[in-house]
């Protein structure tokens, strides 16, 4: 199974949580201290190990904040 790496753009992430909700591998979680300038908590790529680079978080992110890479 492919291994994935998720990069979340901190300038774009508004912390809606969609990526977290739809990550089947639980690789993403909401941060508890990483705030946007509006005071919103952002998403974290907290469990890199489980990520299989499915890319579903990318299509769920409405703010174009995510890129998913396959680690070769």
């Amino acid at each position, binding site marked *: 199974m492919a291994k994935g790496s998720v990069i979340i753009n901190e300038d774009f992430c508004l912390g809606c949580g969609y990526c977290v909700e739809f990550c089947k591998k639980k690789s993403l979680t909401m941060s508890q201290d990483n*705030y946007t*300038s*509006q*005071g919103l908590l952002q998403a974290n790529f907290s469990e890199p190990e489980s990520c299989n680079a499915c890319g579903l978080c990318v299509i769920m992110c409405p703010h174009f904040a995510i890129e998913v890479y396959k680690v070769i």
Partner: protein
Amino acid sequence: MGIERHNVIFAGVGGMGALTSGQLLAKAAMKKFKNVTWYPNITTARRNAPADCLVCYSDTMIYSQLIKDVETAVVMNNIQFDTMKNRVKSGGLLILEADDYAENIERKDIQVIKVPGIKISSKIANPRVINTVYLGVYIGATKTVPHELVKTELEKRFEGKNEILKMNLEAFKEGVNFGEAA
């Protein structure tokens, strides 16, 4: 100053609460002053964009709710800094975020208070109460409106939401203390 007449800008980005702080101040000021105006300056995109408001309170008629050079500017976020730093009139007061502006402000003709707003607010709860901290600082530093009046407004606003009210009252108190000390 002769007759008492004040104006202040609260500036931040959408969602930060700059407009709310201004409104709380305006409502509190109504108890003491005959005339109060609150004018919001928000861009079309009400999201992630600069937002500020201008509050005037006075015992005489307020001709214009718009004015370029203000007595005090409270700048909660660096996005607004460039616009606002020149709008404080000579002898006025500029209150800003210490974390954002470590370096010195060029202007020497105004008083500057740097507030560690993010730190204070995060300590109390989270950055969402930062606007209340700044409101406190303004009141503490200028004493133009008695802080009890502002407290009353906070209580009205967060009626029934005890948790949030508590956070805000604390934020306000911390702010006032910081402002008085500055």
